[in-house]
């Protein structure tokens, strides 16, 4: 069992292979090229997926769709698809993505046209039904405290059923909107192994596989390296992760052979609990996942088996997210360096606090001093003031202010006060930068499962 070569056709019977080519919209666009070649060498059903949505990205995509009906899919979707789509079609590796965001059918049309220009055809399925923005304002499931005139997007996390159906009907590419991240993997594995929609034990394994893979390299050496205790090999070339899932419900996490990074018990543990609250009840549209009894086994280099996953029936309600307008987010900073830098930044902070209290008293500015305390601070400045009082001399520091508010003009005036420190502030202040933009916010809601009907369109 130990150190089995990857992939090993002799032991691969009954296994499906699924790789994650992107864990978020800002991921490395060409990382999937090597992943597809690794999948090509696997013996069994193989799938590639790209996870491209976060809570806020869907609301941003909906705004793009409002300005142009042919936009509104993840803006980097084609940067991820273009390097691999022809090869995947040739190999028969289906691609699944939620990068359709607010406009999956526009993405499908563009992809169809691009493929056609290359002389290629594909069966492209869109999974729709997650987008309820048209009915949200008057709906009885809308949270009572939600300002209906500020809604820009309303999407329900939908499960694996439609993905599995699309694959069963021969889809080469499945493009969805708010498909739940792990459900892309669950849909693939239901297709590969014929698992039923109420086989909670198997769906739990599939969901755990999806959860471990959905952030891409976060399970294979990303968001992990700490030179003192947790070194990572060749971190500039992290390999995409692959799950090997047996029809018996066995699960092994590995990665692209010959790539950088690593899959270890430590990387898998950290990702297993990532964004999880109660490990005994991780709610997804497909199953209630129970990780409380999980233990890991190292099978060989970069091969970790995950045992002890259990599942319970899927929740009766589905979670949704409303994207809301109305808030603005501004930031500005100014730097000090050399002798007395800390004393000067402390003075700049004092001046700025006084000025903003006088000029924009309704705002709640958040202050940081990069180089002394910038990441652990609180809105009251308690942590920052303690850190500044105890700060040793630092050679190079930067004062930062961040403000979130409904009053765009007031934020603008506050940021102007940072710029004014060039002339009116302590000696040697340089490098002012300021930015101000809309800050779409989200609000979660729950809706009875029976009120959401996912469906497929073909392109």
């Amino acid at each position, binding site marked *: 069992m130990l150190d089995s070569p990857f992939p090993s056709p002799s032991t691969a019977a009954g296994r499906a292979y699924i790789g994650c080519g992107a864990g978020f919209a800002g991921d490395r666009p060409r990382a999937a090229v090597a992943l597809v070649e690794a999948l090509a060498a696997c013996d069994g059903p193989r799938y590639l997926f790209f996870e491209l949505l976060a809570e806020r990205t869907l609301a941003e995509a909906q705004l793009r769709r409002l300005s142009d009906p042919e936009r509104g899919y993840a803006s980097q979707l084609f940067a991820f698809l273009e390097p691999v789509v022809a090869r995947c079609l040739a190999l028969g590796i289906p691609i699944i993505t939620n990068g359709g965001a607010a406009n999956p059918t526009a993405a499908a049309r563009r992809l169809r046209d691009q493929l056609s220009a290359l002389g290629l055809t594909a069966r492209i399925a869109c999974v729709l039904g997650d987008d309820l923005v048209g009915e949200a304002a008057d709906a009885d499931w809308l949270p009572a405290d939600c300002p209906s005139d500020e809604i820009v997007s309303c999407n329900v996390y939908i499960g694996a059923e439609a993905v599995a159906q699309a694959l069963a009907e021969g889809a080469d590419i499945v493009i969805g909107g708010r498909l739940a991240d792990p459900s892309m993997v669950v849909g693939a594995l239901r297709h590969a192994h014929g698992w039923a929609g109420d086989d909670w034990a198997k769906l739990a394994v599939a969901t755990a596989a999806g959860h471990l893979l959905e952030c891409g390299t976060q399970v294979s050496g990303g968001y992990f390296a700490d030179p003192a*205790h947790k070194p990572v090999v060749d971190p500039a070339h992290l390999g995409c992760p692959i799950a090997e899932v047996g029809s018996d419900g066995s699960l092994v996490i590995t990665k692209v052979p010959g790539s950088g990074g690593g899959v270890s018990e430590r990387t898998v543990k950290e990702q297993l609990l990532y*964004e999880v609250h*109660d*490990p005994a009840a991780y709610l997804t549209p497909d199953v209630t996942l129970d990780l409380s009894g999980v233990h890991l086994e190292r099978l060989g280099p970069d091969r970790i088996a995950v045992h002890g996953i259990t599942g319970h029936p899927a929740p009766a309600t589905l979670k949704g997210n409303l994207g809301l307008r109305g808030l603005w987010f501004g930031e500005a900073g100014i730097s000090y360096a050399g002798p007395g830098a800390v004393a000067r930044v402390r003075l700049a902070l004092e001046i700025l606090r006084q000025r903003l209290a006088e000029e924009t008293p309704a705002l*709640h500015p958040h202050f*940081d001093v990069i180089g002394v305390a910038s*990441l652990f601070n*609180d*809105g009251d400045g308690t942590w920052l003031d303690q850190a500044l009082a105890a700060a040793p001399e630092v050679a190079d520091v930067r004062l930062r202010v961040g403000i*979130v508010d409904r009053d765009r003009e007031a934020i603008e005036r506050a940021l102007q006060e940072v710029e004014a420190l060039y002339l009116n502030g302590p000696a040697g202040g340089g490098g002012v930068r300021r930015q101000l933009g809309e800050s779409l916010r989200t609000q979660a809601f729950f809706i009875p499962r029976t009120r959401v009907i996912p469906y497929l369109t073909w392109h």
Partner: protein
Amino acid sequence: MHPKILLADVAHARAGDKGNTLNVAVFVFEPAHYAWLERTLTEAIVAERFAHRRPHKVTRHCLPGLHGINFVIDGALEGGVNQSATLDRHGKSLSYLLLGLRLPSPAA
């Protein structure tokens, strides 16, 4: 007086966010230290470490099979990724706030 150690020297951790809720999962490097972790890293100590962020609630979930504990810290993200004015709106760096704790040594 027990000797103290830095949590980062015996454990690793990862932070995640959902709305205004932070979770930090902490795992000991040496499985033999897990009993010490469960005894030492209490909800009260974590609540105190994050007190300046004024969390509403701290809940811990023990995972002996993984030699780790998941802490769920409600209300610790200054409003969360879409409403916070902080530099690190996700709170991704906050695993290291926890790992900066000094605790009685497991060897003591």
